[in-house]
């Protein structure tokens, strides 16, 4: 049974239709965290976030407090918020920017204060037209309310936030690529090292990049204390987290649940959450953390929703998306479509990623649609191996950024878990699923 006792930290206003307005926000404790933060000195604010042990919600799961404290020696120049959310089946930041933009803005101001930067950018996925309007409205309202701009709430702290629209490129979620886009260039990821944003970020200056959800947790953490947050969850994975549940479930949607205390099974089957698989069909596989993550079979449904717990089983919680594939789904088709995504979204810099993704996609297309050869199955695996040598987890890579080694995840999972299905595709001259 799911443990649903934890407070709603980032989705507390989900039942209000006007949750995105300043009026509602103020009526529900809005900007109190910021006011409190401004009474503390910045180091103390950082310490609270550190105590909360808030893991970054963008995918890599690096603790925000640690990221910040590593930086505080060298004065930071910019804070950049990553709202590019394009990992397939991930839609929790979409929820946050449309439904609770003030919470995001407050979080950004708190972070900026903690980091003592005076310029922040919120980079939002271009396709979020409504989200862009809501966040821009929230920023406008925050200015009028005195929560943003010169001398915030009468303090000596000043901050400007610019809402920056993306323009349709998944790779811009990768933080260095995002910075390139913010510099007005093509979203080509930079090589780390030396381009760790913290050292060599926007315009070559030290920059913190954090995810929308990471930021949205800050008002609560400051209001309630880092310890209260850390008391939730277990081990490295503290607090609650938004999970975007999609695919073959009765109630797809965004759910905020306590980390580690719940398992994939809880998330998928609890009546208050996913509500099970339609038609009571069996789960064939799940994609546990975005399509970059290796898949889990039904045998791993009881793995707790925690970073280390999932990593221990050879995958990742990643972007907080869970896709359920029921017994009727064609695994070749699923893996092909995911590869097609990477092929379309590869930035094109690195040969293995640019050429490999397209080649694998075309072979996978043949396997699915007819024309596949038996040797193609191992051919795609070998091509995968040339992008991510050894096909290990965590992956090795021959590319600049980790989009490259994400390409093999679906193909490798599908072939190792469902090789027979691939063989049948070859034998039957294509897919026989309805």
């Amino acid at each position, binding site marked *: 049974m799911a443990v649903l006792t934890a407070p709603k930290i980032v989705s507390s206003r989900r039942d209000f239709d006007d949750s995105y307005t300043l009026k509602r926000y103020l009526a529900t404790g809005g900007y109190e965290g910021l006011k409190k933060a401004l009474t503390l000195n910045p180091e103390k604010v950082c310490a609270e976030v550190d105590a909360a042990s808030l893991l970054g919600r963008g995918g890599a799961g690096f603790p925000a407090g640690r990221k910040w404290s590593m930086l505080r020696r060298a004065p930071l120049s910019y804070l950049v918020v990553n709202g590019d959310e394009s990992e397939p089946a991930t839609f929790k930041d979409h929820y946050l920017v449309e439904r609770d933009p003030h919470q995001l803005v407050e979080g950004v101001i708190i972070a900026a204060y903690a980091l003592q930067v005076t310029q922040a950018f919120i980079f939002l996925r271009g396709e979020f037209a409504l989200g862009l309007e809501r966040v821009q409205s929230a920023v406008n309202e925050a200015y009028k309310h005195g929560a943003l701009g010169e001398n915030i709430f009468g303090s000596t702290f000043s901050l400007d936030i610019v809402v920056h629209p993306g323009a349709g490129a998944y790779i811009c979620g990768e933080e260095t690529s995002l910075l390139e886009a913010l510099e007005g260039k093509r979203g080509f990821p930079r*090589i780390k090292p030396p381009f760790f944003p913290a050292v060599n970020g926007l315009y070559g200056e030290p920059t913190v990049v954090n995810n929308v959800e990471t930021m949205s947790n800050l008002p609560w953490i400051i209001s309630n204390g880092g310890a209260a947050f850390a008391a939730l969850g277990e081990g490295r994975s503290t607090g609650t987290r938004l999970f975007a549940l999609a695919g073959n479930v009765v109630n797809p949607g965004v759910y905020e649940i306590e980390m580690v205390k719940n398992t994939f099974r809880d998330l998928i089957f609890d009546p208050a959450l996913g509500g099970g698989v339609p038609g009571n069909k069996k789960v064939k596989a799940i994609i546990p953390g975005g399509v970059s993550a290796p898949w889990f079979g039904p045998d791993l449904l009881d793995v707790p929703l925690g970073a280390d717990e999932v990593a221990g089983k050879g995958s990742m919680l990643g972007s907080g998306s869970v896709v359920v594939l029921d017994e009727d789904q064609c695994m070749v088709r699923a893996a092909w479509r995911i590869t097609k995504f990477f092929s379309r979204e590869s*930035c*094109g810099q690195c040969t293995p990623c640019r*050429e490999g993704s397209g*080649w694998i996609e075309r072979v996978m297309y043949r396997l699915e649609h007819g024309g596949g050869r038996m040797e193609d199955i191992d051919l795609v695996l070998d091509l995968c191996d040339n992008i991510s040598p050894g096909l290990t987890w965590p992956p*090795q890579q*021959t590319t600049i950024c980790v989009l490259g080694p994400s390409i093999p995840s679906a193909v490798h999972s599908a072939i190792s878990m469902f090789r027979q299905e691939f063989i049948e595709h070859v034998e039957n001259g294509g897919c026989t699923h309805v």
Partner: protein
Amino acid sequence: MSEITRTAVSITIDGRTIEAEPGELLIAAAERAGTYVPRFCYHPRMEPVGVCRMCLVEVDGPRGATLQPACYLKVNDGMTVTTDSPKVKKAQDGVLEFLLANHPLDCPVCDKGGECPLQDQTLAHGSGETRFIEEKRHFAKPIPIGENVLLDRERCIQCSRCTRFASEVAGDTQIAFSGRGDMIEVAPDPAHPFDSVFSGNTVQICPVGALTAKPYRFTARPWDLDQVESTCTNCAVGCQVAVQSSSNRLTRVLGLDSEAINHGWMCDKGRFAIEAVDANPESVDPLSPKTRITQPLVRVNGKLEVSTWNEALARAASLLSVAAPEQVGIIGGAALTNEGAFAWERFGRGVLGTDNIDAQYGDGLDGLLLQSLPAATIEEATKAPVVVTLTGDLREELPILFLRLRETIVHRGQKLVEFTSVASGLSDHATVSIPVRPGEVSSIVSALVAKEGVAPASSAASSESLNVARELIGLGEGVVFVIGRANVAEDSTFIENSIQTLRDAYPKAKFLSALRRSNVHGALDMGLAPHLRPGRSFQFSAGRSTTEQLDALASGKQKAVLLAGGCLIGNVIDQKLAKSALKKADVVAVTGHGGATLEFADVVLPALVANERTGTFTNIEGRVLGLQAKVVAAGTAWNDVAIASELAEQFGQSLGLNSVDHAAQTIEATTGYPTWKVLSGQSIEGLLVNAANEGSAIRPLDPAAFPGVQPASNVGLGTLTGSIATPSIETVSTVEKAVEGDIAAVNPAKSGVAKANEIRLVVSRALYDDGMAVQASSAFDNLRTRASITLHPATAKKLGVSQGDSVKVTSKSGQGVFEVLENLHAVIGTCQVALGARNAKNVDVVRPLVQVTEPVTRVEVVKA
């Protein structure tokens, strides 16, 4: 702290310990140590990007050995690297296979076939069989992306060398990556083709056959090509090049990586002007630059007829045999080799006994002054913390010098102080760009060197910018002044006085000449100037400069002239004077190229031209560089040493020079000028002939040893002053006032006619002008400078004209119709035109405008 002592680091490559420079890229360190790591995107003269992933090697780190790009990784002390493990091999083979997946198999018809790294890698390591049965990516086959460059997108391996070159090195992003993923392609903007003057470099550095050059396409296969290392003679920078030919036809020129000079780059003029050597075999009209002169010609009944050497030489000698030495002279010489120049100097002074010798056409700088300057090398100019330019637009005049300076200014934080009368390619990058109108430079420079000097009230410069410049220059230590002739419609006295002022005010500074005409520096060093003697010595004489000779010829004081290479009419500003002078004179022309001048020649002696002759060349820094013959000339052309010697024989005298080699040895023996060493095959860095070259007998002239250059005349200087507001481009209103003021200032007290739209004329130089090489090479047919005037928007507004308008420009001596181009870097109150511009009827519209007898030319601009 003075110098940081750099200690070498040691790294282990495949079990071998080697020394490397701290901060060096692993790929370079490995290569020096004999381990070649395959690569495609890496280019040693550009910032690494690490995108092709071909150079992956295993590097030990905290998390075990991981694959890292050798082109991107800097060496660290103790680094352990494996380049030959199975893991490395698999990764590299994988990259190669991926690259080939979408690469067409058209090597047999590809220009690059035979010299293609992708082909080589594939032959060495690729598997014979492809595992790919899918359709490859398809694009329309080669599309022209610029005048001389074609792109085959199917062959592109997305290494980004070309796009990086365009933006990082050349600074004009006319091509860029477009699209994403495997549909990425190199693309220009359709409305703005890739016509950068550096476009050919992208063809040279493309590792596959994706970019090809129109002039070279399908002319040869690499294995049929023969090559020599030589020096480009299209301008005075002296780029080191590989000249290639096939069946005695020049096919291609490639830049060589000379550390001192061109870093492997070239401009398109140098690269594509080889057509001028082959010229058009059908062209026989001696007045056409497309014609190669391959036989002696003698004028018979008013027509030039093919003749024999014996007859032509005898005829030439009789024409040059005048009653007194002052009745004869030599003009030209910048197109010669040092040896050729030396031979003609000996002939002129020794046989003809005259000092009427001048290699320049009145559009350069005084040779004595040039040789009195402490010379800087290009390298010194690029290493100087502050560089100061008083020149024209270097991108148009000396493109590779522009490239070298741009690199240090943009990428290494060098400060540029620009005194400019033209919209220059460096203006965007200048720390301070001081506008100079015609006639103002000497007063502005005087204000600069004066303590707390203020900008002359009437000038375009502001005191603030002069203060910044003064501060940057300091005492001049380590500062390099790049000096040239920005405006040929301005009396050279202005700039020459300014250079003297700078030399005297900043004795610790160095100077780099920006004279652009081919071997003009070599010609001056060989004494082809009235007061100069070979080996940078001088002796005052009554010899005439080119302009003075033309005057003397026109007035009958001088009877005959020998034109030593180059087309006098095509080069000189005052064509009217030149024509009337030559019409009266007996003219012996020594040249390999046809041209307008030959209309007046009585005898034409055919000389070898670039790439047909061996010898040496001296560039802007005074660096002596080798010239090697690549092709054998058609017909019976001789080298200049032979021609001069044979002509001397006709006078019953001997120059004592048996051959080009002998001439080189003689130069070295008599002057210490080291041409012979270069000739006998030294490195492509050449030999520096200036004070910096220890042990060299050649030193700059001591300025104290001669009284300096007297201004030719001071006429008119007074009329240029007046009171106007200091222009600032900040606000339109002050700008307008400035223009108004300027117009008031140039209000001709002399002429007495005030015209509201009269402004000062700047005649700059364009790379694709109407020079012989440009006219003879079809590569430049559509790139030739247009009949346009460049105006600052404020000037345009004041004149009531705007971008694209057709305007009539009138001076006291001529007029022409031009198109208006607005440019924020143009100097307010001036009208800039480029020498070489012609109208639709192919008639020169610029030279006639220049009032050669005036210190500056004023023009009136009205809408046509």
